[in-house]
């Protein structure tokens, strides 16, 4: 194996320090027994305990989980339908436009998405609520779920499993149920997990379309920051980070399967 020159190692070290040190510091200070993020005063779980006893925080966490799960399930279901259409029919009018338009929300600046959605809801006289939030999250989660699921369905199509099933007497629905779905399941789940992660950590769009009563974790953290960065914020952000990381890890493990 070739050894990297010293300068390259230093460069990479610098980049990674810059990327991960702030997160490390934040996580470390979430265990700091002092009230301010200045000096280390000893190890404690106090802030986590306090967090879980605080009804507001618990509610924010609950809202976020509920929102992310809903967005993930809906995105995966819609993503499966869209991917199935694209994999099943090699060509239909406007297929390219269909495929690209699905991906647009992923690339669009979130501020624009947020303003757009808000304008839409107001114009449509839809009261901002938990469900408008779910709909909005589905908009930007869908491309992530679809991407994962579609890749898998395409590769399944390459192997003609569905055709083999139909050749042996399965109707379209039976072929889907007995062959395509079981084989695509890991990708569907992994797409849902990715959508969950994206939804769970979203701030910008949520900020625009969340009604008065709906407070998610990122929103709660933001509002807490007005009073300075307390150790509780550190603890909460650490939880958010770990959950997101776990989600991403699960996604890659599942996507890597087969």
């Amino acid at each position, binding site marked *: 194996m070739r050894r990297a020159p010293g300068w390259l190692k230093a460069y990479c070290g610098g980049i990674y320090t810059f990327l991960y040190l702030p997160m490390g510091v934040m996580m470390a200070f979430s265990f700091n027994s002092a009230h301010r993020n200045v000096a280390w005063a000893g190890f404690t779980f106090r802030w986590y305990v306090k967090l879980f006893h605080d009804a507001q925080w618990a509610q924010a966490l609950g809202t976020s989980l509920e929102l992310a799960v809903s967005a993930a399930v809906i995105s995966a279901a819609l993503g499966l339908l869209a991917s199935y259409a694209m994999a099943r029919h090699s060509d239909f009018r406007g297929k390219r436009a269909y495929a690209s338009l699905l991906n647009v929300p992923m690339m669009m600046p979130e501020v624009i998405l947020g303003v757009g959605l808000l304008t839409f809801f107001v114009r449509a006289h839809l009261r901002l609520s938990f469900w408008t939030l779910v709909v909005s999250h589905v908009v930007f989660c869908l491309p992530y779920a679809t991407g994962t699921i579609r890749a898998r369905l395409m590769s399944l199509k390459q*192997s*003609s*499993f569905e*055709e083999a*099933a*139909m*050749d*042996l007497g399965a109707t379209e629905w039976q072929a889907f149920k*007995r062959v395509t779905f*079981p084989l695509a399941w890991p990708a569907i789940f992994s797409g849902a997990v990715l959508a969950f992660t994206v939804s769970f950590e979203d701030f910008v769009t949520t900020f625009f379309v969340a009604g008065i009563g709906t407070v998610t974790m990122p929103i709660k953290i933001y509002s807490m920051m007005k009073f300075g960065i307390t150790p509780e914020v550190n603890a909460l952000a650490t939880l958010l980070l770990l959950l997101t990381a776990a989600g991403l890890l699960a996604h890659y493990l599942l996507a890597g399967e087969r």
Partner: protein
Amino acid sequence: MPEPLLRLESISKSFGSTPILKGISLEVQAGEFLTLLGPSGCGKTTTLRVIGGFEHPDDGRVFLAGAEVTDLPPYRRDVHTVFQNYALFPHLNVAENVAFGLVLRGMPKGAADVRVREALALVKLSGFESRRISQISGGQQQRVALARALVGRPSLLLLDEPLGALDLKLRKAMQLELKAIQRKLGLAFIYVTHDQEEALTMSDRIAVFNHGVIEQLGAPKDIYEHPRSSFVADFIGAANILDAKLTRLTDTEAVLLLENEVELRVPRPKTLDAAEGETVRVALRPERIEVLFSQASASASGLTHLPALLREAVYLGSATQIFLEPFKTGKTLVATTMDPVEKQLNGNASGQRVWLEIRPSDIRILERSAA
């Protein structure tokens, strides 16, 4: 004439604006082994997919046992396919794969198990029931795919290059086994390959495909002995293809001027669409050319001798390939001989003077020459 098991009636199919099948018509009788043979991209797989119901023809009709099935989906046709990449279900084990079609039909588990065991025994995979697909070799996967297609007892099996992924030795063994299974069950096979040797050894009849049309359809011997075009002559076995002018044509005989040089009298073929004075292509098989190293004393009746320069001799193990120049145009002919010829070649072979012995009746008149 009984109703054929399968009848294709001038099937046409285009993808985009490219015509892929241009009026394919053929019939398969019960128990027959028909091979679709042709170069890559000529439409063999597409033809199978039309029969299986995976592609809808733009034009033409498909009949199975006399009933039109052109518009029926794959699951309503009594044919099964062995896919080129096998398409075995990776989430099911060997027995579950084979049982797939039976379960769909609602066959009781006990009866299905018996049938699965029979099918696996037929392909010599007894004891592999609970193996996962990823745990068996390519050759074994091929057998599972075959068992899965056979277990439902279709009257017609479609096989798309089923041995394409196997090594040569396994391939040869499987050719014999497939043929034996086909005979034993009395099934009709439509077998796709681009291996001409495989086609010649296994088939009852061969359909030679080229660019979406069937160039020739017939028994292996018929196709090999009487190719109707230079494409067929060249694709099935090796052939020397020459230009010849039809100088005279009688009811029984055609007089040819080979490469504007050598006059030959050959029997008139049954079908010939060229007239006197036209130039045609003719084929001569390399194994039908005898190479003589000294001028034959008295030429035996009916044989023609041509002087030629020997250009090269290539040792092939069981045979030797000899490249010859009998014409002033410098056109090269290939001859293959099973005789040991090293002695006569005496080292540096090139430039040696030899004689070709050919039997005019071995010359096959093909299509009109384009030039």
